[in-house]
């Protein structure tokens, strides 16, 4: 990963120095080794704090909505999963494509510090990844963890590939994987209504309405969100009533249905660890099953499943038929 980071830094410097771009969007070091955050670098000096490591899970595409409006070009580092969000935003005319220079970078799966901590490993000062092993350094010594156990949830079932690149920095080959991202959705579907209700009630009652899921979501990028708009009739008031979380999450999931690229940021940022991606994935699975496989963000043009139709589409009353129960 270090070699990748060096190449990225080199390119960022060159682009800024030549004046080809006015800024570079990447990640900068945090207070700890595991909390880098998205940042915009406008000069070579600022690049001192640039970082790209196993904790750079954040999706940078959403920042381009504002950045691409600024004067001068903006260079951005996109991981495979981020490139879908980027395409979707270009499709919706939110990003000015001509103002962006995309550098595709490799990603071999990012780590989840919460999962590492959950393994009883605290005060992490560094990590080293070797195939399926993660060597974690702490003041108390080294610990070796299994990588699949500690990657971000969104990375566990990812097999995305780069969809956009003006150039690419890839040094390590990604192993091919055969994953079923709908496994957990299927598990829920196999439950009874009562069990599913209990499951979601337990999950969503944890929600504190911090709006992190909404704010991080590249599809939730409305100029003004319906939940902030008193004219919508569903505007959220603080601690409105007991129904609120559920309403919020249903509407949110529906609003991004057909547009969600399954980037998994919602679940990554949720402070309450609600598996929000399972809501979006249900829509994705239904869309795939009913209207044919569709991956939002695969291209930057065309209609989404909810803005198109065929004459022989399934009837709403029939979608439950054939369900084993």
């Amino acid at each position, binding site marked *: 990963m270090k070699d990748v980071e060096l190449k990225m830094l080199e390119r960022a410097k060159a682009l800024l120095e030549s004046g080809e771009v006015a800024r570079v969007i990447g990640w900068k070091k945090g207070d700890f080794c595991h909390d880098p955050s998205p940042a915009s670098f406008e000069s070579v000096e600022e690049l001192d704090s640039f970082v790209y490591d196993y904790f750079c899970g954040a999706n940078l595409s959403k920042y381009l909505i504002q950045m691409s409006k600024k004067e001068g070009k903006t260079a951005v580092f996109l991981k495979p999963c981020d490139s879908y969000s980027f395409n979707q935003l270009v499709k919706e005319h939110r990003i000015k494509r001509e103002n962006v220079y995309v550098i595709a970078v490799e990603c071999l799966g990012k780590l989840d510090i919460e999962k590492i901590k959950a393994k009883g490993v605290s005060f992490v000062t560094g990590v080293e990844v070797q195939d399926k092993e993660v060597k974690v350094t702490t003041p108390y010594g080294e610990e070796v963890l299994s990588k699949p156990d500690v990657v971000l949830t969104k990375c566990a079932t990812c097999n995305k590939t780069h969809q956009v690149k003006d150039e690419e920095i890839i040094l390590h080959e990604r192993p091919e994987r055969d994953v079923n991202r709908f496994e957990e959705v299927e598990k829920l579907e196999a439950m009874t*209504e009562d069990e599913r*209700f209990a499951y979601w009630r*337990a999950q969503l009652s944890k929600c504190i309405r911090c709006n992190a899921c909404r704010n991080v979501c590249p599809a939730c990028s409305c100029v003004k969100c319906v939940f902030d708009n008193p004219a*919508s009739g569903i505007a959220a008031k603080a601690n409105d009533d007991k129904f609120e979380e559920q309403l919020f999450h249903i509407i949110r999931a529906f609003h991004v249905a057909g547009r969600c690229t399954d980037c998994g940021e919602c679940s990554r940022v949720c402070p309450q660890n609600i598996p929000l991606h399972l809501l979006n994935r249900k829509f994705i699975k*239904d869309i795939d099953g009913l209207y044919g496989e569709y991956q939002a963000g695969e291209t930057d043009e065309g209609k989404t499943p*909810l803005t198109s139709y065929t004459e022989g589409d399934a009837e*709403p009353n029939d979608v439950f038929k054939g369900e084993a129960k």
Partner: protein
Amino acid sequence: MQEVTTEKKEFTPNIVAFCCNWCSYAGADLAGSSRLTYPANVKIIRVPCSCRVNPTFVLKAFQQGADGVILCGCHPGDCHYVTGNYYTRRRMALLYSFLNYMGIEKERTRVEWVSAAEGARFSAVMNDFVAQVTALGENKRLTDLRVKEGE
């Protein structure tokens, strides 16, 4: 008299029916002028096209205590606005499937295509839906999701 009071206490569901102006609302009118009865707890909201029905309206109805929500529009291919109900069909198929995924009884939601000429069908559909929701009982899930005290 005693009997009457107990009867009144029996559960009668509150049903919100969204009907498109051109087919289903007219179908409901025809059911009326043909004196084809259906329970009084069905109340109709007129919308220009089934595609005007936002999922938030459906959720709002449940939030406010409706026990069932039914959406009626022109038969696919016969939409007054050419393609409106095709979008409705996709939206509602996904929404209803999703609500069920959240544990909401699938019997509470329905989409039916009723043409202006199908008064009898309108009445039959409403009778059937009311019976279905009555059998299910009160909607509790969409009005309360949080773990309540005492549970």
